């Protein structure tokens, strides 16, 4: 495949792969680092890019899709460094498509001018499809007292997991990797919430 999307973890890979299939993009592989030797998925992206650089034959583009978290500027700079260290060119800014010797880009999830993670984005899509779920899950957060001690990113992850479990009768244990083929999946892949990322993927692989 001429284009590669690099994600942080396997759950992210499955989501992006689902989005690519939905948008009928067939020229793109999606991958993520193995995390055996690394703590966080982002920490392993430099090694993954170096591994990718060992065989550039036929490679036309590398797109990094990572969570913006609370420090998108710093995160973007670290991705630029990782691209350069792996002998790839780097874009001047996030959400830009640079056509150098190969095409490169960095997309910070959820979208431009917004902090957060993929879990926030997926949660947003669930609430849009199932508005009734918002009140339920907030009550659940209060009951379990997680809101008082957990970081916002962890809260989003917990809410999403709880909702997936609640809706997926076919497999309440379903992870983000398996939810797409599980009966009752509450995450609508055709949601407008994913439009920015999906449009960027189309533009990048076009």
């Amino acid at each position, binding site marked *: 495949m001429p284009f590669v999307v690099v994600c942080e973890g396997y759950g992210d890979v499955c989501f992006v792969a689902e989005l690519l299939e939905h948008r009928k993009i067939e020229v793109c592989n999606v991958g993520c680092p193995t995390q055996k*030797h690394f703590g966080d998925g982002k920490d392993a992206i430099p090694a993954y890019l170096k591994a990718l650089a060992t065989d550039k034959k036929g490679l036309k583009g590398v797109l990094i899709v990572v969570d913006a978290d609370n420090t998108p500027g710093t995160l973007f700079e670290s991705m630029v460094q990782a691209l350069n260290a792996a002998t790839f060119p780097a874009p001047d800014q996030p959400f830009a498509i640079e056509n150098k010797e190969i095409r490169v880009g960095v997309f910070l999830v959820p979208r431009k001018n917004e902090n957060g993670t993929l879990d926030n984005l997926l949660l947003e899509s669930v609430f849009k499809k199932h508005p009734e779920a918002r009140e339920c899950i907030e009550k659940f957060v209060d009951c379990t007292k997680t809101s008082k001690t957990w970081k916002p990113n962890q809260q989003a992850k917990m809410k999403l997991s709880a909702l997936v479990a609640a809706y997926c009768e076919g497999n309440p244990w379903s992870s983000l990797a398996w939810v797409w083929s599980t009966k009752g999946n509450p995450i609508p892949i055709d949601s407008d919430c994913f439009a920015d990322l999906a449009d960027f993927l189309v533009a990048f692989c076009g």
Partner: protein
Amino acid sequence: MIKSFRAKNFRCFEELDLSDLRRLNIIVGKNAAGKTALLEAIRLALGATPSVAVSLNQYRGVTFFPNPLKEQFESQWNSFFFKFDVERTISTECEDTEGHKASLRIFFAKEKAFTPMIPQQQPQTTLLPTIIPVCFDRVGFSGQSTKLYASVHQQGQGLNLEPGPELGQATEFFASSWFLNPAQNAQWFSQLSLENREQELIDAVKSEFGSLINDLSVLAPTPYGSSVYATVPFLSNKIPLSLVSAGINRFFTVLAGILFRRSGVVLVDEIENGFYFDRLPAFWTTILRLASQYDTQVFASTHSMECLRGLLPLLQDHHADEVTLLRIERQNGSSGVTSIKGEFFEAALEQNFEIR
């Protein structure tokens, strides 16, 4: 140590340019990509004699004709030329880390063509077809220029390989078809022993196979020659190392080659043969340690991912700068090499990328 290597028109390589060679150079690639040819190119470049070329043919199973006719003589050399095109000139150039260069050109020397004659009853003689000798035009690391020729004797009786010294780098080539040579092992061990260096070799073998080997020595108990013998637990008599384990014997031979070819180059085709997978990390560590200690450079080819994975602990232990991966691919009838630095090689192994 060789820092860069270039070759033209040799076997499957129309043009080859390796510019950042390291202490340990690992060669990968599909069947018929040119892994063995790369090792042969380096061996030939450093040897640069007709005899070395003939020995490469023998490893390949090319029929050797001690008394060749014209076609048979030519068949000894044709396969060295890219696409068997003998109108081309094979050339190689090695540069060491101190900037010294050695070069070799191999070509059919048409100006030296001659017609051998078989003397019979005078005044009659039998004329044989014209032979064009093969010239090995060499420049050593010292800058000295010499020419050696491969031909047949003037009277048509036998191959004539002009002898000469190799170009200054001690080289050992273990082809994939190499068989263990007890006499050579014994000779190397004895030579190392004369220099009081054999203990390093014994310790290296014992460190990997201490439960099987207590000691090593060279003995000649029969009139058929000497061998390396092992003192093994649970047996009262010493036995030939080759009877303990073919793999251990092979390990011994490669290490002995590294010690014996001090400041030289050791080339090993299909290095993984004979080694159990969990021995490989220690195997590589020992090879690199001894190669560094004795300033020997190693080029080794492999098809085995287990063998490559065995390098990961070494790469992660701050040795990535001493290793490079050379991946050979054949496209449009010619082979090319991609050099992959140790840190990238390490990343590809960590991330489970296919790099063979």
